[in-house]
């Protein structure tokens, strides 16, 4: 037995199975499965875009919250809030300070009714004020 003989035998192996194959049926089956896949992909896309707006907003919110958790860790070198806010607050009048409180929905019972400037606060009061503003 030589190699060419083996190759001749190999060449005829499977020939009858190939001849019996219903090629059109195979082609139709393949196309049908591929078509079903595409239809499914289209359906999933539609489901997403038809989802209630609330779901999409929830997803967006989740992304923002995740980013909010991750980003501060990256920006550890940022300045302390007090260092940024204190000079600004120091320049505000009592009325302006009250407006800031209002816009932030922060109650400032003590200072709201008393016309005091930022410079009138002691250190403990200033810390409390900053704590309130930082939430």
């Amino acid at each position: 037995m030589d190699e060419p003989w083996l190759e001749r035998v190999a060449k005829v192996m499977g020939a009858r199975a190939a001849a019996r194959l219903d090629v059109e049926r195979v082609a139709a089956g393949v196309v049908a499965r591929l078509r079903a896949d595409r239809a499914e992909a289209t359906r999933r896309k539609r489901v997403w875009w038809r989802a209630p707006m609330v779901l999409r907003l929830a997803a967006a919110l989740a992304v923002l919250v995740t980013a909010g958790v991750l980003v501060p860790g990256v920006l550890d070198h940022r300045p302390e809030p007090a260092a940024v806010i204190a000079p600004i607050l120091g320049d505000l009048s009592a009325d302006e300070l009250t407006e800031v409180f209002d816009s932030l929905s922060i109650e400032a019972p003590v200072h709201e009714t008393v016309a005091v400037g930022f410079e009138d606060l002691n250190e403990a009061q200033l810390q409390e004020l900053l704590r309130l503003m930082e939430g």
Partner: protein
Amino acid sequence: MPLCPYAVAVLTSSPNGRLLYVTAPMPDTAPSDAELIEAWRRGEEAAAAELVRRHARAVARFLSAAGAGDDVEDLVQETFYRAFRKIDGFRGGASFRTWVIAIGSNAFKDLRRQYRRRPVVALEDREIPDSADPHAEAVSRELAQRLQAEIVELPRMQRDVFLLRAQQGLEYPEIATTLGTTVGAARVHYHHAVQRLKRVAED
């Protein structure tokens, strides 16, 4: 003069003024595999069907020789289904047919794993060449059966290399590209396969 359907007739005149009837081969208008693949990527289902028609029998021959038995038709369908789903992975390093055959080999491996307890192959007379084949007369039916059984039992890489070369007539570089190996390794696998099959035949 009758014209075959694959020729076009051109009416022209010779230097002496007589009309000449010249035929020329009709240009091959069938789209190439690459063109059909592009058409499928654009979403043309007919292109996918045409590629199946072109190559399904070659894939069936390979899978049958590898031992697919009665599962050949299902396997061929699964093979082409997988191929079209990951058509973007086809880089053209080998022919489309060879690439699909390699996918078929993987699908067959998965099937064998799925039916691990099942006998690997059921040798049937219908897979043995009949007397109408010129080579079959020189080969005993019993010997051919033993050889086919041994091909099925070869390690997968040896089997695939042997069938791609001996049955599909591929060259080593294309075999190596398709199976993700080197030309040298493909030669070694083929050599081992041939030696083992020779031993079986000589027993």
